[in-house]
């Protein structure tokens, strides 16, 4: 595991929040995923050792919670809310349009490696639907024009990013 020093420091700190180490399973998975982008088999083994657990104890958590992923995804993660209030205001159309914008289906990585689109359950912002989360940021009342604008922003940001070393 090649984690950043800052991640390692946060991992050691968060373990102290609980009287039982196992409780730190979700926090560690979040920290590792934020650092590495996904949860690899090596990460599962590493977390298990860190928390004095069996790998299965960590693995069964990874497979239970939708936010943990066992595969790398695109550099940007677009999550469109699928649940009723958003659907009533156009969530399904928004999801389709994003897929057209990036030429990939939900759960896939776009050809340029830039985005993964997911159709997720309720994001708890039902009054401003349809809502979309791009990475950590919530976007509200997303209509066709907003999908276009958000997609353009993603593409512009990708062009500005320095090439990977």
């Amino acid at each position, binding site marked *: 595991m090649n984690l950043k020093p800052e991640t390692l420091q946060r991992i050691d700190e968060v373990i102290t929040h609980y009287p039982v180490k196992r409780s730190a399973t979700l926090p560690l998975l979040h920290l590792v995923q934020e650092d590495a982008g996904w949860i690899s088999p090596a990460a599962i083994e590493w977390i298990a050792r860190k928390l004095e657990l069996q790998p299965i104890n960590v693995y069964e958590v990874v497979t239970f919670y*939708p936010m943990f992923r066992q595969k790398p995804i695109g550099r940007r993660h677009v999550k469109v809310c699928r*649940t*009723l209030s958003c659907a009533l205001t156009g969530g399904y159309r928004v999801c389709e349009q994003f897929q057209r914008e990036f030429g990939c289906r939900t759960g896939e990585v776009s050809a340029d490696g830039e985005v993964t689109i997911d159709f*997720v359950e309720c994001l708890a912002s039902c*009054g401003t639907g349809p809502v979309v989360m791009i990475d*950590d940021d*919530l976007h509200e009342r997303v209509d066709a024009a907003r999908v276009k604008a958000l997609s353009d922003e993603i593409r512009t940001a990708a062009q500005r990013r320095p090439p990977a070393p």
Partner: protein
Amino acid sequence: MPVPPQRRLIFAHVDEPGYTNDIGCYLRHGGYEVMKRAFARKPEELIDEVKKSGLRGRGGAGFPCGVKWTLVDRKSGKPIYLIVNADESEPGTFKDRYIIHQDPHQLIEGTMISCFANNVRQAYIYIRGEMPHGARILEKAIQEARDHHFVGKNILGTNYSCDIFVHRGAGAYICGEETGLIESLEGKRANPRIKPPYFPAVLGLYQCPTIVNNVETLCHVKHIADIGGEAYTKIGTPNNTGTRIFCVSGHVQRPGYYEFECGKITLGQLLNDVCGGPRPGRKFKAVIPGGSSAKVMRFGERYKGKRKVGAEMVDYDWGVEDVPMDFDSLAMIGTMGGSGGVIVMDDSVSMVEALANINAFYSHESCGQCTPCREGSLWMKKITTRMVHGTARAEDAALLKGVADQIPGRTICAFGEACSWPTQSFIAKFGDEFKDYHATRQSAKPEAALPLI
């Protein structure tokens, strides 16, 4: 009955221009003064105030908060934990989000008063994984409160110490259910525990007595400690005290959050006067009044019976619009106030398609421990999805009902009820639409109709 003005108690500062979520702003608005006064009192007195207030839980079940606190096992010698349920996972609900993002110190103050009242030394805020900014805001606010000696060691110079940590979920609805939440906080799959014996008040987190309360409930505690339980009962109506935040979504002109005294506004006033009524050219068709698990109401139906007003029993004959928005009235007409999430559907909506959407949610979110829930939720989803995208049959309505009826009462947690009530109520109230769907689904849809599944 005229439409009452909003009564903003919990949302007093939400969306207020210039109000920020840092401790400086909170202190300028009198923040933590209530806590200082509360810490000068005996913990039992504070519990008594909450009991007197009649405060009912805002997370879904409406269980009296004071009663919950008296059920806590205080003789075991084990530490008592408090968990703030900030999972906000019931579809249609989006109130805790604004408290967390815009007024986090109100939650921290209410939490600390509740911890002090119950001799809690460690609290956790379990926040849904999809609110990363919310988690960071809470962490920052807690650190500010620690720096001011409102949280942590020797609070306010007393020998009472209590810390709060934020714990993030990871996208599973069942973590909102309190025992699933506890399992999740212990680092496991969020498989709910069976009650008895695992009542959190006795065998909760790490098998210790544990209080689980919703974010909004704990904010109300702050106001109860402020004005006193007796004065708090003057807000709202008997047995439905305080304010309620209604989260209105779907097909109204002005969706959003609105805080009113509990029971002082009717559903019709809320949807027509406050939310501006249906969209132009449309009519209301159905409303789910308390989060997506609550049983649906059909516009045009009537509710009749006897109800208690003061000491007397009086007849009532209500349309959907006449129902007062409080726990007891909504329960009386066969649905529930739940989490306060009001989802509105107009006449562009096919009820079969709306139910298919809801069923897809529940089948995705079942934890899978109980066969009736795991299989039943999946079958209900498959049947309704097939009706929309494959072949629909006249007998599907009866089939759906047959599946739904076998779930409630046969599962470990209340998700079993939550996933079957939508199907049961949609079929009971819109049965014809389900029976005729095979014939009608090819006909032209209203222009406003959107895909729901």
